[in-house]
C-alpha cells in the first residue's frame, strides 16, 4: 500500500485533483481494494474535509483496508515523494535566491502564478452551483480577506456556523 501511494505521489504533477483519477484506477481497477461506489462516496467526504484531497483520499483508503496503521502508511506514501523533491529544491534554491538570472526568471513567473490561481475560479463557481443569488458569498469573502485582512480561519468557522444555523432554522419552520 505504501508503495502504491508512493508511486501516485511521485508521478502526479498539478496538485491533488490530478491525483484522483490515478488513485481510482489503482485502488478500484488494479488492486481491487474497494468497489467504485465506495470510492466515490468516500471522495465526496474527503473533498469536504480540511486538508488536501489527495491526502484525505489516501488516508481513507488506508483506513478502510488496515485501520489507523493503514492510513499512516498510505498517508506517508503520498506525502514522502514530494517532501524529498521539495526539500532538495529548497536546499539548492535558497543559495541562488539572490542570483540576478533567477530573479529575472521569477519576474516572469510571478504574474503567471497569479493567473493560474485566478483562471479556474469561473469553472469552480459553476461546479459549486453558484448562481446570481449566491454570488455575493464568494465576493464578500474575497473582499473581507483581501481588503480588511480578516483571517480566513474566521471565515471558515463563520461559514460552518451559518450553514448549521440555516438548517436549524429550516427545521424549526418545518415543525410549525
Amino acid at each position: 500500500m505504501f508503495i502504491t501511494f508512493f508511486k501516485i505521489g511521485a508521478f502526479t504533477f498539478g496538485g491533488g485533483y490530478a491525483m484522483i483519477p490515478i488513485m481510482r484506477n489503482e485502488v478500484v481497477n488494479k488492486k481491487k481494494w474497494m468497489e467504485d461506489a465506495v470510492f466515490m462516496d468516500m471522495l465526496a467526504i474527503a473533498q469536504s474535509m480540511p486538508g488536501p484531497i489527495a491526502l484525505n483520499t489516501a488516508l481513507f483508503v488506508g483506513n478502510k483496508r488496515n485501520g489507523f496503521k493503514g492510513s499512516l502508511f498510505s498517508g506517508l506514501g503520498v506525502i514522502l515523494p514530494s517532501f524529498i523533491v521539495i526539500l532538495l529544491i529548497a536546499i539548492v534554491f535558497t543559495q541562488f535566491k539572490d542570483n540576478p538570472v533567477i530573479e529575472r526568471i521569477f519576474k516572469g513567473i510571478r504574474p503567471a502564478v497569479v493567473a493560474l490561481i485566478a483562471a479556474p475560479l469561473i469553472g469552480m463557481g459553476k461546479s459549486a452551483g453558484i448562481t446570481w443569488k449566491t454570488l455575493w458569498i464568494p465576493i464578500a469573502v474575497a473582499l473581507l480577506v483581501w481588503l480588511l485582512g480578516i483571517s480566513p480561519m474566521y471565515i471558515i468557522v463563520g461559514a460552518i456556523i451559518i450553514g448549521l444555523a440555516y438548517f436549524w432554522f429550516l427545521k424549526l419552520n418545518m415543525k410549525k
Partner: protein
Amino acid sequence: MELIDLYLDMFVSFFKIGLFGFGGGYAMIPMIHDEVVTINNWISIGEFTNIIAISQSVPGTIAFNSATYIGYSATVNLGFATWQGVIGSFVCTLAVSTPPLIIMTVICAFFSKLKDNPWLRSSLSVLKPAIIGLIAAAALMLMNGHNFIDYKSWIIFALVFIASIKKVDPILLIIISGVAGLILY
C-alpha cells in the same frame, strides 16, 4: 530566537493551516500567507510567491509542497544551518498533515452515518462558495506591486489567464513565463 521556539511556532501555525484547510491548496494560500508572511515574518512576500510557483511545478499538492519549502526556508532565513532547516521542513509537513489524519480517522468510524447527514450538507452549502471567495482572495492578495512590477507583468498575466482557461498545461505555462522573464527583464 531559540530554534526550539521556532519549531514550536511553526508546528502551531501549520497545524492551524491543516485544521482549517478546507477546499485544498489554492484556498489555503491566504491562510498560509497570513501565518508565514503577515503574522510571523518568516519569509518575504516575494519569496512567498516564488514558493507557490515552485509548489505548482513539482509533483504533490500545493499545501504540502509549500509547508515543506517554508519550513526549510524560514529556518535558514533566520540564520540556522542546513540540517536544522531540514528538521524545520519536517516539522511543518508533519504539522499540516496531523489534523487531516485525526479527522479522517474519526470520519472513517462514522462514515455511513455522515454520508447523507443534512447538518453536514447544510454547512457545506455555505462553505463551498466561501472557499471560492478564499481562492479569489489568494489571487487578489498576490496582485501586488511586488509581483506586478510593470505593464509587462500584466501582459504575462493576461496571456497565461487565457491560456489556462483554454486548458494549456500549467507547468508548460510556468516554463514559458520563466523564459519570457529572462528575455524581458
